[in-house]
C-alpha cells in the first residue's frame, strides 16, 4: 500500500437543502447553488479552482447522458479539467477520493468536488407517483440478465444480508434496534435546517409503518432526495493561506467487492452476512490515520444509513464493536447525539437525505462542519476526529471511508 505524497485539507463546503423535489431547479442549477455557497464558505472565487470532480450517479435520473459536461458548463469552469465519478451509492465518496488523489499527488492545489442529483423528474403515469419510476431507473443498475428480472430492489439487496446476519448472530439486529436507528436519525435531522426528513418518531411508529422489503418498514428506508453538495480540497500550503480552520483528510480507504453476492459466498459463506468492502475500506483508512481503537479514537461518524439495518452492520464493519453486537450500541445510547460515539448527527441518509451522487459529499460537508464547530444544534462536543463512510451498489459492493481531523 502506498501513501499520499502530501497532506490534503478541506477548506470549505456546503449543501443545498435536501428535498423530495426541487421543481424550480435542474441538476446543474442545484450544483451551482451548492458550489456558490461552498466558495463563499471558503472565501474563494471560481478562478481559484484548478480542477473539478463531479459526483453524479445516474444519467437516467438527470435525463442526460454525461450530465457532468453540462454542470461544468453551467458552473463556468470551461478549460479546467473536469472528471465525473459514478460508483453507485458511493459516488459522492468516490468523487471526494478522486479530488483527494489530485491534491495528494501534487497534480493540483485547489480542487472542487461537486455532487448533484435529481430523481423526482421520473414519473409513473400509471399510478401517478414518482417512486416506482425512480426505482425503475435503479432496475437497470442490477445485473440485467440474472438479477433485474427477479424484481429485486436496492432495499432487497440490503435486506438479504441483514436476514443472513440475523441467521448467523441470533436474530441480531432486531427489528426494534433497527427502529431505534430510524428514531435517532430522523430526530437528529430536526436539528439540521438542510434536512429532507426531520421527524420526531417513536419506535412503535417505525415498527407499525408499512412493510417495504422485509425486515425494512417504511421508516427503515431513506428517501431519495434532490439536492447538491460541494467541497473544496486544498494542499497544506494553500489551506493555511485560505483558512485557520482546515480539516485534514488523515485517512482514506476504498474497496469494491464482487457485484454478485454468489462470488463473495464462494470466498466465504459468511461473506453474505457482512459488508466486506466496508471492513476493508475502514481498515485501510484507520491504518493511514494511525487509528488502533476506532471506538475510542473517533469522536463521531457519518455512516451510510440508506437502511436502518445497514447502519447497525456498519458499526460492526467499522470496528466500533464485535460482530453481532451492533444493535447494542443503539440500545445503550452510545451512538445517539450526546452519547460516547454519535453516529449521523446530521440525520444521515434517513434524516438529512440521499441525493445519491451528492450523498458522500454531503456527509463529508457535515463532518467538516462538526470539526469546524459550525454544526449548530447538532454539534458534537469536542469533535476532533470523525469517520465518513460512503457505500453503494449491490449489498454494499462499494465502500469509501475517510478519517477527518480538526486542524491545529
Amino acid at each position, binding site marked *: 500500500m502506498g501513501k499520499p505524497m502530501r497532506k490534503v485539507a478541506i477548506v470549505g463546503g456546503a449543501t443545498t437543502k435536501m428535498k423530495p423535489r426541487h421543481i424550480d431547479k435542474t441538476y446543474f442549477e442545484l450544483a451551482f447553488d451548492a458550489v456558490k455557497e461552498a466558495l463563499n464558505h471558503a472565501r474563494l472565487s471560481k478562478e481559484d479552482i484548478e480542477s473539478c470532480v463531479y459526483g453524479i450517479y445516474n444519467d437516467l435520473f438527470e435525463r442526460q447522458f454525461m450530465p457532468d459536461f453540462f454542470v461544468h458548463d453551467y458552473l463556468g469552469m470551461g478549460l479546467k479539467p473536469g472528471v465525473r465519478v459514478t460508483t453507485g451509492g458511493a459516488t459522492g465518496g468516490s468523487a471526494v477520493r478522486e479530488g483527494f488523489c489530485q491534491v495528494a499527488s501534487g497534480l493540483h492545489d485547489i480542487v472542487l468536488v461537486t455532487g448533484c442529483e435529481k430523481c423526482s423528474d421520473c414519473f409513473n403515469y400509471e399510478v401517478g407517483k414518482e417512486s416506482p*419510476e425512480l426505482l425503475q431507473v435503479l432496475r437497470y443498475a442490477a445485473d440485467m440478465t440474472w438479477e433485474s428480472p*427477479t*424484481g*429485486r*430492489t436496492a432495499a432487497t439487496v440490503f435486506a438479504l444480508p441483514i436476514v443472513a446476519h440475523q*441467521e448467523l448472530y441470533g436474530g441480531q439486529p432486531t427489528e426494534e434496534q433497527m427502529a431505534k436507528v430510524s428514531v435517532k436519525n430522523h430526530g437528529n435531522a430536526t436539528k439540521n435546517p438542510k434536512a429532507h426528513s426531520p421527524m420526531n418518531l417513536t419506535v412503535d411508529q417505525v415498527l407499525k409503518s408499512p412493510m*417495504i422489503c422485509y425486515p425494512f418498514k417504511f421508516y427503515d428506508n431513506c428517501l431519495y432526495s434532490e439536492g447538491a453538495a460541494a467541497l473544496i480540497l486544498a494542499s497544506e500550503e494553500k489551506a493555511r493561506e485560505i483558512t485557520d480552520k482546515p480539516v485534514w483528510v488523515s485517512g482514506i480507504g476504498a474497496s469494491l467487492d464482487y457485484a454478485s453476492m*454468489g462470488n463473495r*459466498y464462494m470466498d466465504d459463506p459468511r461473506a453474505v452476512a457482512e459488508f466486506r468492502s466496508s471492513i476493508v475500506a475502514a481498515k485501510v483508512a484507520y491504518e493511514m490515520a494511525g487509528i488502533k481503537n476506532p471506538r475510542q479514537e473517533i469522536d463521531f461518524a457519518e455512516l451510510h444509513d440508506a437502511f436502518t439495518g445497514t447502519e447497525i452492520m456498519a458499526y460492526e464493519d467499522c470496528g466500533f464493536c464485535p460482530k453481532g453486537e451492533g444493535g447494542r450500541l443503539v440500545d445503550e445510547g452510545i451512538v445517539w447525539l450526546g452519547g460516547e460515539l454519535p453516529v449521523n448527527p446530521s440525520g444521515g441518509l434517513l434524516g438529512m437525505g440521499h441525493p445519491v451522487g451528492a450523498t458522500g459529499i454531503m456527509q463529508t460537508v457535515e463532518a467538516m462542519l462538526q470539526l469546524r464547530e459550525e454544526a449548530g444544534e447538532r454539534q458534537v462536543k469536542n469533535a476532533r476526529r470523525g469517520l465518513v463512510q460512503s457505500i453503494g451498489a449491490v449489498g454494499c459492493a462499494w465502500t469509501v471511508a475517510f478519517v477527518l481531523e480538526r486542524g491545529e
Partner: protein
Amino acid sequence: MKMEKSKAQKWYERNGGRIGVAAEKMRKFFQPEVEGWKAIGDPLEYPDKIEIFYKYTYGGQSRFFRELRENKALYGSKCLKCGKVFCPPRQDCNRCYEKTEWQRLSGEGIVVTCCSVHFTNSSFIKKIPFICALIRLDGTDFLMISNIEMEDISQAKPGMRVRAVFREERDGAITDFYFEPCL
C-alpha cells in the same frame, strides 16, 4: 397559459401519443398546466421518456438459456482447474483464470437468505408481494438470486430446500423458471 378545451384535448393526445400514455392520464397530471392558470415565471414540466431497443447476445452464457428454454434444464459451469462450480455460469473462472466446462444441475437447492418484497419498481409493482432469495443450487459453490413462489410468503426462511419449476412458455430468460419449496 389557459388553453381552450378542444386545443387542450389535442395537447393531451399529441403528447400522450409521443410518450405512450393515454390522453386521460395526461389530462390528470397536466390539467393545471394546460388548462389552468400558471404564472409565466412558474417552473414548467414537460412529458418525456427514454426507450432503447436491443437484440442482446448472451455470449458465453448462451448455453444456459438454450438448455433452459429447450430442455427445461439448469446448467452450471465448472472450472477445469479448481473444480468450483458457478451458477450463474461463467465461461472463465475468475479465481484461476482458466476455462470452465458445462455441468448439468439437479435444479434443487437451498435458500441461503431471503426476504419478501412489498414495494418495487414500475415493472414489478403489480406483482407484490413476492419473495427474492439467494439460492445455492446443489452441486454449485455460488449463489443465484431468484423468486420463490409459495402460499404463505412469511414461511420462506434461510435453510429451506427449494426446487426449480419451469414455465410452460419459455423465452430464453431467467424468468423462464422460479423456485418452490421441496415437499
